[in-house]
C-alpha cells in the first residue's frame, strides 16, 4: 500500500491555503479556474437535472410554468394597447408578435440574471460544509436557463409561424442571439452575487430594478424615435441584444449588429471579471454563513 502510494506521490494534488490573495499569482489562478470549471462539469449537470426534476415533479402544470408568466405579460400589454389605455406607436411587426417575442426573450434574460444569486443562495448549506468546484453552481444555473429557454423558443417558433412570419436565414443566427442574452444575463447576475449573498437588500431590490430596466428596453414598447427616451434606449446595452435576437427570429435584417457585437465583447470581459470576483469572494462569504 505504502509503496504503491509512493509512486503516486508526485501526481497527488497539493493544495496550499494561505491568507494571500490568489491575484498575486494570476497564471496559477487562471489555471485553477479552468481546472475547476472542467472538474465541476459533471456536478453541474447533476445539480441541473436534480433541480429541473424536482421543480416539475412537484408542479401540476410542469413545463407550462416556463411560459405562463411571459404569456400573462403579453396578454396584459395587448389589453392595455387595444383598450387604448396606453398608446403605443406602430411596430413593423404585428404588435402581438412584438410583445410576445419581447417578453419571451426578456424572460430568458431574467432567468439568466437571477440564476447565479439563486443557485448560490440555495446552496448555502452545501457551501458552508463541503468543498466542491464553486463554478458548478453557476454552470448548473446556465444549464437550467438553457433548458427553460428551449421550451420558450419552441413556443416562440409556433407563434411566429402561426402569424405567417418567415424567419428565413435569420433562423440560423437566432441561437446566437439567445446565447448572448444568456451570457449577458449570467455576467450581470454573477457580478452582483457576492454582495447579494452578504446583504439580502440586493435580492429584494433586483425585481424592482429589472422592471425599470424592462421599460427602457424595446420589450413591450417599440424604439422611441426621438427625445431623451430615445437616448436612454440607445444607451441601454440590452437594447441591441433584444432587438437583434428579435430581428433574427422574425426575418428582419438586424439594425444594431455592430452594437450587438460590442456589447457581447464587453459581456465576455465582465463575465470573466465577475467569475474571478466570485471565486475570490467565496471563502470570505462562507465565513459569514453559518456552518
Amino acid at each position: 500500500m505504502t509503496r504503491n502510494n509512493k509512486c503516486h506521490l508526485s501526481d497527488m494534488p497539493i493544495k496550499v491555503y494561505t491568507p494571500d490573495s490568489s491575484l498575486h499569482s494570476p497564471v496559477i489562478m487562471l489555471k485553477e479556474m479552468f481546472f475547476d470549471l472542467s472538474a465541476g462539469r459533471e456536478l453541474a449537470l447533476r445539480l441541473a437535472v436534480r433541480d429541473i426534476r424536482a421543480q416539475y415533479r412537484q408542479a401540476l402544470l410542469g413545463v407550462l410554468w416556463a411560459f405562463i408568466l411571459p404569456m400573462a405579460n403579453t396578454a396584459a400589454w395587448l389589453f392595455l394597447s387595444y383598450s387604448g389605455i396606453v398608446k403605443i406607436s406602430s411596430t413593423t411587426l404585428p404588435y402581438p408578435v412584438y410583445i410576445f417575442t419581447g417578453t419571451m426573450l426578456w424572460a430568458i434574460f431574467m432567468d439568466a440574471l437571477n440564476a447565479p444569486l439563486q443557485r448560490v443562495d440555495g446552496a448555502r448549506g452545501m457551501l458552508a460544509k463541503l468543498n466542491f468546484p464553486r463554478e458548478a453552481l453557476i454552470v448548473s444555473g446556465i444549464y437550467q436557463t438553457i433548458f427553460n429557454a428551449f421550451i420558450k423558443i419552441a413556443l416562440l417558433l409556433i407563434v411566429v409561424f402561426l402569424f405567417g412570419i418567415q424567419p428565413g436565414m435569420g433562423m440560423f443566427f437566432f441561437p446566437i442571439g439567445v446565447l448572448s442574452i444568456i451570457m449577458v444575463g449570467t455576467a450581470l447576475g454573477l457580478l452582483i452575487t457576492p454582495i447579494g449573498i452578504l446583504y439580502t437588500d440586493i435580492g429584494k431590490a433586483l425585481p424592482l430594478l429589472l422592471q425599470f430596466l424592462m421599460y427602457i428596453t424595446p420589450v413591450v414598447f417599440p424604439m422611441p424615435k426621438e427625445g431623451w427616451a430615445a437616448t436612454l434606449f440607445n444607451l441601454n446595452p440590452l437594447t441591441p441584444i433584444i432587438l437583434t435576437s428579435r430581428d433574427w427570429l422574425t426575418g428582419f435584417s438586424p439594425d444594431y449588429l455592430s452594437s450587438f457585437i460590442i456589447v457581447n465583447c464587453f459581456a465576455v470581459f465582465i463575465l470573466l471579471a465577475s467569475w474571478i470576483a466570485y471565486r475570490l469572494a467565496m471563502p470570505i462569504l462562507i465565513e459569514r454563513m453559518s456552518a
Partner: protein
Amino acid sequence: MSETLIKVDGISKKFCRNLKRSLWYGMQDLSKELWGQRNGGNGELRPDEFWAVNDVSFELKRGECLGLIGHNGAGKTTLLRMLNGLIKPDRGRIEMRGRVGALIALGAGFNPVLTGRENIYVNASVLGLSKQEIDDKFDEILDFAELGEFIDAPVQSYSSGMQVRLGFAVATTLEPDILLLDEVLAVGDASFRSKCWRRIGSLLSKAAVILVSHEAYAISRLCDKAIYIKQGNLEYYGDSNNALKIYSNANKTYNNDVFTVTNKSVKSVEFESGKAQLLPGDSYEFSMYIHMNESVNIDHAVINIIDQNEEVHAQSLLEFNPTSLLLEGLNVFHVKLGPLYLSQNSYDLSILLSINGGKQPLIHSKSALGFLFKNHICYGPKYYPPGSASKIN
C-alpha cells in the same frame, strides 16, 4: 516511511461576534481581496472580533489519526473548515496533499422531492465522485444503507436516521488520502453506529485522519495523537490519552460540576479514591468516611458510572454489609464496585445515598471519584455490576 499529507503551520482565524459588523467586515475583506491584499490584515483584531483559532501547528502522515478535542466553540470546526479549504486562514499556511474527503455534512445536496436513488448520484457528485465511480459502487452503497425498497421513495419521507444512513453510505465510498471527520455519527441506532465505526476503521489505515469528537473512547481507541484546543489556542498536542486526561480535568473545573450535597444530619463526607486506571474484570474500590450528627438508616444507595457527557454507562445498587445504619459520629465504609466491563474512556462516579424509604437524599456526590478504563472492546450502553459497602469501623 509514509509521507506527510497534512502540514499546518501557525494558522489563525478571527471571527466577529456581531452580525451587522461581521457583514460589514465581510464587505471590507471582499474589496481588499479584490485589490489583491492579503486576508486578515496584519493580524490585528477589529472591534468585536476574537481569535477563533490562534496559532495552531501540526503535521499528519498517512495512516495516522489525530483527535481534535475541546469544548463547544473552542475552534475545532473552524480548524476543520480551514483544512477543507472552505474559509481562508488569517495567518499561517496549510498544505494538503491528495484527495480530501470530509465526513462533515451527511446528505449534502439531497433534494427532498427526489428519490433516494436519484439523490445518491447528486450527493456523490458533490463529494467529488465521478459517474464511473458511483456506478461501480452503487450496489455497495445500497447494501450499506439498508433502505430496502425505500430507495425509490422520495427522501422527504425518510426518517432522520434513514437520511443519515444514506448520507453516510455515500460519503464513505470515497477513498480519500485525507479524511476529515466531524461528529456525524451521533445519530442513528446503536447497531448502525457500530457498523459506521467499522467502516471508518477500514478507511483509517489508508488515510491521514482528523477526528473531531466529544466521545473520549472514540478518540482514545482510534487516535494516536490528539490536540486539545481551548478558546482557539492549542493547549496540548501529543499522546491522545494525555490529551483526554487534560481535557477531562479541564472539563471538571470548567463545568464546575464536582459537588457533594448533604442533608443537615451529615456533618462531613470524604472519599478516598481507588486505582486511577482499570482493566476489564477489575473492580473499583474506594473508601467513604461519613461523619454524622445523628443516626439514620440508608434505605437506598446507587452509584452511577458516568462519562463526560453525563451518560450513564453502569449502575450499581449498593448492598450494605453488615448494616446500612449510620451511627452518630464517624462511619467508614469500604466500597467495591465490579467486576467492571466498560468501553475505553474516563469515567466519574455519581453517588446517591437516600433515606426515608429512598425518597429523601442524604448525600449526593458527583465527580468526586473517577478512573480511566483501558479496553479495546466496545460495550453496549448500560449494565448493572454488583456493588457492596462493608462497614469497617
